[in-house]
């Protein structure tokens, strides 16, 4: 049997990405179905993440599957020293697909090697989070009509922001121009700049975040600048308000420009922007449902054609 696990989407071809985007679009057209009736989806959250778990569980429920799992590792025997392998082997007997999140990097990759049950990586430490990347790609595709030749602005914490790193890698083959706007302490790590250089991807690094610097943006991807990330608290005090997107800054921006944010937001996007046609972060989170419905179906061997000819659609 081919293992259809989704651990990373970094090496997927454009065709494969487009296929998954088309599946997500099909899910958006009809997000309530019974196509997974009789299936069991396990959500194993060895590390708590309420948003991601709710999104996956909603996706499974809206497709008619039943959900088992845990939201907190304290409730499981992994705290009693059970190995990840044993837990995965045990759950493989019960579930048709395992959605897992783990604090350790590479956990999902390893899990996919010890079982034939497909694994969906819902985040492994600072490493990968492919369902977040899929929903980001879907949001960009939906709002811009394409993924190629876009001006992508990444703002805030670019050092620890796993979502921006994954997005950078996923978009790198679509001829983007990246703008990295961050304070010195949180700038884009060298390994990702090298990643761009090796692939001939254009990027520009900036410290200033103003109406002028963002005028050419197609996508502004905002992230949270957190106090605990700073070694120098003076530096934090100096820059904490410099990376807030303010309504006045949007005046000269492109009409098609959309603002994305992985949420939760604190104050890095002014609340008055929420009603602006440029704000897209809540819809983006909503797109997570369609992207995850698509991923769950895909690992279970359900094709785009199956979705298009689905007789189980409720609405």
């Amino acid at each position, binding site marked *: 049997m081919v293992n259809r696990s989704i651990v990373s989407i970094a090496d997927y071809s454009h065709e494969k990405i487009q296929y998954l985007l088309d599946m997500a679009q099909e899910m958006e057209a009809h997000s309530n179905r019974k196509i997974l009736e009789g299936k069991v989806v396990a959500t194993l959250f060895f590390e708590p993440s309420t948003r991601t778990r709710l999104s996956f569980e909603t996706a499974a429920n809206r497709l008619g599957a039943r959900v088992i799992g845990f939201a907190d590792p304290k409730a499981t025997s992994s705290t009693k020293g059970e190995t*990840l392998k044993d837990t995965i082997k045990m759950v493989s007997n019960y579930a048709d697909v395992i959605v897992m999140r783990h604090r350790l990097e*590479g*956990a999902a990759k390893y899990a996919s090697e010890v079982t034939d049950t497909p694994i969906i990586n819902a985040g492994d430490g600072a490493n990968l989070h492919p369902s977040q990347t899929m929903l980001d790609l879907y949001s960009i595709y939906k709002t811009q009509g394409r993924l190629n030749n876009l001006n992508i602005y990444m703002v805030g914490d670019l050092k620890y922001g796993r979502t921006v790193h994954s997005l950078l890698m996923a978009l790198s083959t679509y001829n983007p121009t990246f703008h990295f706007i961050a304070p010195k302490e949180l700038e884009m790590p060298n390994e990702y700049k090298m990643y761009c250089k090796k692939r001939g991807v254009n990027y520009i690094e900036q410290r200033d975040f103003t109406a002028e610097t963002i005028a050419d943006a197609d996508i502004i991807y905002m992230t949270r600048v957190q106090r605990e990330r700073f070694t120098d608290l003076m530096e934090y005090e100096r820059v904490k308000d410099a990376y807030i997107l303010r309504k006045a800054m949007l005046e000269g921006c492109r009409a098609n420009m959309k603002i994305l944010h992985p949420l939760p937001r604190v104050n890095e996007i002014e609340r008055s922007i929420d009603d602006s046609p440029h704000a897209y972060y809540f819809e983006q989170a909503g797109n997570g449902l369609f992207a995850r419905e698509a991923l769950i179906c895909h690992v279970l061997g359900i094709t785009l054609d199956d979705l298009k000819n689905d007789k189980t659609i409720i609405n």
Partner: protein
Amino acid sequence: MEKRKDLLVAALENGTVIDHIPTEKLFTVANLLKLDTFHEPVLIGNNLNSNKIGKKGMIKIANRMLSDDEISRLAVVCPNIRLCIIRDYEVVEKKEVTLPDTLENVVRCANPVCISNNEPMRSFFYVTDKLHGMMRCHYCNKEQKIENAEFYQLFNVKP
């Protein structure tokens, strides 16, 4: 002249000669191969003259060939070492040891939050740059320098 130098370390009838070991790495190599557990004769020489690298170390192991796994481990410590297979006092084969394309269960991942350091499981790396000695962990994807890596399981010796 040539002959006298060779005789500094006694000649071997059958076995393996590990030549051109950088002097500072000689004892790492000895530990790595667990020479202390060998029962056949083993000869170790250091600070021998070498046309190639100035001073060198050399190890002669009687009646034993190295396994592929041992050769991989050797390559991690000294990428430019040379192996000679001896039969009847003659060199029948010379092998330049080079880094393999992958390293399985040879070294540990440098990333403490990598799954491979937290489960009873294998380690696995792709050698991404043989010239600069770089590898990438199959599990956590972290790119790292091979020479900084710690040996896996039994071989707890810093290169």
